[in-house]
């Protein structure tokens, strides 16, 4: 795991992490990002929403990895700006088609709620597929800080 952390005192700070393709590693990595966001002054709702969206995104990246993708690391970049939090999750899976607005599955379904949660919790969600990996970009607008 590598970590590059910018200074918390500036208006923009970044954290870069790599995650092994192991579902048991997801929560530990998400906890590091949660601590980073708290250190940047993000409020509890912003942190909780980013935490769950990130976990869902990483779970998808790992669960849908097969073959050589299982040996590749998932790359996570967190950028905390004054007005928004950006999470970029890059994996090496075959990728998926991001719907404009994911729908909830039938109540009795045991799966299919991850993308819905991500899109509901985040301000915007973008997905790009490319030969060097697929990147899911999650942006959460931050509440204005009162002077």
């Amino acid at each position, binding site marked *: 795991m590598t970590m590059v952390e910018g200074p918390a005192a500036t208006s923009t700070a970044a954290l870069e992490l790599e995650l092994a393709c192991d*579902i*048991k590693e*997801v*929560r530990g990595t998400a906890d590091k990002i949660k601590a980073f966001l708290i250190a940047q002054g993000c409020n509890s709702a912003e942190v*909780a929403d980013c*935490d*769950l969206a990130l*976990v*869902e995104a990483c*779970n998808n990246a790992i*669960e849908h990895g097969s073959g050589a993708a299982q040996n590749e690391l998932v790359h996570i970049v967190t950028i905390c700006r004054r007005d928004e939090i950006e999470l970029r999750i890059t994996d090496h899976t075959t990728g998926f088609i991001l719907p404009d607005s994911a729908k*909830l599955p039938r*109540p*009795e*379904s*045991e*799966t*299919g*709620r*991850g993308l*819905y*949660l991500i899109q*509901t*919790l985040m301000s915007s969600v973008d997905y790009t597929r490319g030969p060097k990996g697929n990147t899911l970009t999650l942006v959460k607008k931050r509440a204005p800080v009162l002077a």
Partner: protein
Amino acid sequence: MKINVQGDTLRVSGVKELSAANSSAFRDWVRGNIGAELKNIEIDLSEAGFIDSSGLGALVSLHRTASGRKGNLKLINPLPPVQQILELTRMHRIFEIMKA
């Protein structure tokens, strides 16, 4: 986690989180402990600070297990972050939620 039996109900407590890392094991562990004479499942979520979609899936599965025995699944005292996810996914309409 702990399990105890009260009448025809299996009660599960001490759940810290329900995530992709533990949800399948949790579901299987509860199912493995529900005797033939039991029909209801109660899960105390008062210590659970996190749930993701895989955790919800495990609860759906246990709801089905209880329904198959003509019983029900009750969630006890979910903390606000978990309650929020239950409401966002509208699962609060499916599960019976009890708050002390």
